[in-house]
């Protein structure tokens, strides 16, 4: 159902959407049963002449059944949902598939800096490519990310990926995603981080491999890169002590 409101652009978006539907069927069923019974009783037992009230207190076995049976059925539903949620959670947040590249994500009031490893393929070296508020990815590649914050909490949220992870100062949090659809999407900050929280967005651009290489070539050329780098460093001073 979510996909009717927003596109799916990551490998695991479908899992979450599936879980969503599963929950909808289960709780939807109980919701309708409960509301149905409620409205039926309201109609059926409305005050009418010649229909006195009855004396039922719910201690009778025959009556208790109406509570006990749903009780166990709901436990069964819960177990299904716990298992389903656990599996998807494990896949997204615990298990890191081998990556094609790692991206550093630095959040601060109120900008995102995305660090690509550059030619040597490693983060935290001199040839890192740093970009502010723009994340370029190649479709079909598996990425790891390393999320940090320079000041307050932020949250790296990509609705089309169905991905969200808070950035905590003092921690470096790892995770992964695999874009599966080309396009231009929103990245939002999802954790209150001060007056600029409402404008702390970034653009996600998912390229085909060819486009991505082109982009990388021009972003990696020293002249161009230097400018980007300068801009990034200016927006991105060392943390205060």
């Amino acid at each position, binding site marked *: 159902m979510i996909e009717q409101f927003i596109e799916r652009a990551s490998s695991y978006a479908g899992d979450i959407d599936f879980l969503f539907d599963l929950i909808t069927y289960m709780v939807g069923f109980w919701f309708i049963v409960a509301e149905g019974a409620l409205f039926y009783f309201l109609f059926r037992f409305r005050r009418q002449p010649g229909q006195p009230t009855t004396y039922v207190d719910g201690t009778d076995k025959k009556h208790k059944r109406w509570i006990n049976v749903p009780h166990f059925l709901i436990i069964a539903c819960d177990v299904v949902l716990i298992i389903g949620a656990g599996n998807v*959670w494990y896949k997204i947040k615990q298990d890191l598939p081998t990556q094609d590249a790692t991206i550093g994500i630095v959040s601060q009031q109120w900008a995102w800096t995305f660090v690509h490893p550059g030619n040597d393929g490693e983060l935290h070296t001199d040839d890192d490519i740093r970009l502010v508020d723009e994340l370029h990815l190649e479709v079909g590649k598996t990425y790891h990310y390393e999320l940090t914050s320079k000041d307050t909490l932020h949250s790296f949220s990509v609705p089309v990926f169905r991905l*969200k992870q808070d950035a905590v100062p003092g921690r470096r949090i790892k995770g992964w995603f695999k874009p599966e659809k080309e396009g231009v999407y929103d990245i939002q900050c999802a954790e209150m981080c001060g007056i600029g929280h409402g404008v702390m967005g970034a653009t996600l651009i998912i390229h085909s491999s060819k486009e991505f290489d082109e982009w990388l070539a021009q972003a990696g050329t020293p002249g161009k890169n230097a400018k980007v780098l300068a801009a990034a460093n200016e927006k991105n001073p060392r943390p205060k002590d």
Partner: protein
Amino acid sequence: MTEATIDPTSPKAPTIGSRIRICLFSTDHKVIAFQYLITGLLMAIIGGYMAYVFRMQLAFPGEDVPGFGWVSPGHYNALVTNHGTIMIFWVAMPVLVAAAGNFLIPLMIGCDDMVFPRLNRLSFQIFFLSALVLIASLHVSGGGFGGAWTAYPPLSSDPDFNLTPLGASLWLIAVALEFVAFLIGGINFVTTTMNARAPGMSLMRIPIVVWMIVIASILFMVSVGPLIAGAVMLLSDQLAGTAFYDPHNGGDPLLWQHLFWFFGHPEVYVVLLPAMGIVADIIPVFARKKFFGYKAALYVTIATGVLSFFVWAHHQFVAGIDPRMAHLFTATTLLISIPIAELCFLYIATLFGGSIEFRTPMLWAIAFLVEFLLGGVTGIYLGASATDINFHDTYFVVAHFHYTFFPIAIIGLFAGIYHWFPKAVGRHLNETWGKIHFWGTIVSFNFVFIPMFFLGLGGQHRRIFDYRHFPDLAGEGFQDMRVIATIATCVLIAFQIPFVINFFHSIWKGKKAEQNPWKATTLEWSAASPPPHGNWKTLPTVYRGPYEYGSPDSEEDYLPQHIEPNT
């Protein structure tokens, strides 16, 4: 309002001076209940006004809001933060726990007052002070605190980040004072119920609403302690510059989140239970039915209370906690649906075989059930860790908790007011205006919050003052939904005007109410309307359970608790 409490048989006619004295210094539990109620309603107006302002900003970004002016991002954050804080701590808590508890507990268990009346007064005075501090915090230089009602550090702890040095500290002090007030009040509720019950009022004869308020008070007391300690630490981070939550010097921001939600989740049940109790007491009266499964209701309430301590980190699934813990908290969170579902089913089953009369209190009580179910089931999407990755801090969460909080704090409140108004004041509220108020509120309420579910599905995040910065969200369709929600908010607030008029008009001019207008069975209806100071001339004795409707032992269809059996 004070007439409600002056003994009509008292030889001294009330003078202005004595009225003021009663308002300020009375230890009568009914006066204190009224004070809590009025303060809560006034704060509800402030909280509602804030909702109006920021909803207008969302629907018509950048334009001046009539009655407020231009909304800056700082304003917006402060409005949302204080809207949430006020609605929970200064509306839901005082009206549901304190006002209902103060008014109902002594009357329902058959004693003349709270066991510690002066502590009770102190509790209100601290509470009132906290409300003043909160309001003051909105007007200091730098503006009100804008770091969300959860006040996560380092944003809340460091003025360099939140830019509201005074506002943040005053906000925190106000919240801490409020906690102290309710700690004192809660101790009073619990001891009164434990120790001062009328003869014959055994544990299994206590009306459900009293049980629920007491259990809520205990939940509050046990959960709030660590947060009070945490608030002291946060305050010293703000004012003295210590590093309890500062990662630069060995602190950890996650500690606050844990302390906050260890309190925060039980807190939502603290406000849920009294509202559930009010509804539990209204439904049997108007369905003329004995409550279905009194003991079961009691046990599942206790189960809810205990379980509520095991779920707190479901608010932190994506906050950087140990991902293995998410499995545990998912399991407990989903399991809590069982006792609550059972409770709802018991209410519905109570209707079975009844003779239901749709007076205004009953309408509100039913609306509570109808709407709360939707709020409850949407909690399941959030409790399942994997879907919460997507929904955390989106409008889906906002819609979820308004579908729980609004039924609790507003619908439950109105159910209680319409039900006990005749007892508290001795006059009836106008039934027709009550129905207009009811339908206007319920219909517009759904139009406010249903669109938010869809906005949440579309990936719209919370606490963002202007969605035009996000191309995916700026589209026509979404903006239309925001406008619908905003217009419905205005309608919703407009429909409170009949209530306010009805309320004040009826206090002085309403139809006189007899002692037991609803033909109810619980003890409070055996006192005069309004009950004098001391409640009864001779304190009642109890002979049976609280919900004997349609009992075969009596010719009428109800058998009050205090009537002696004729054998």
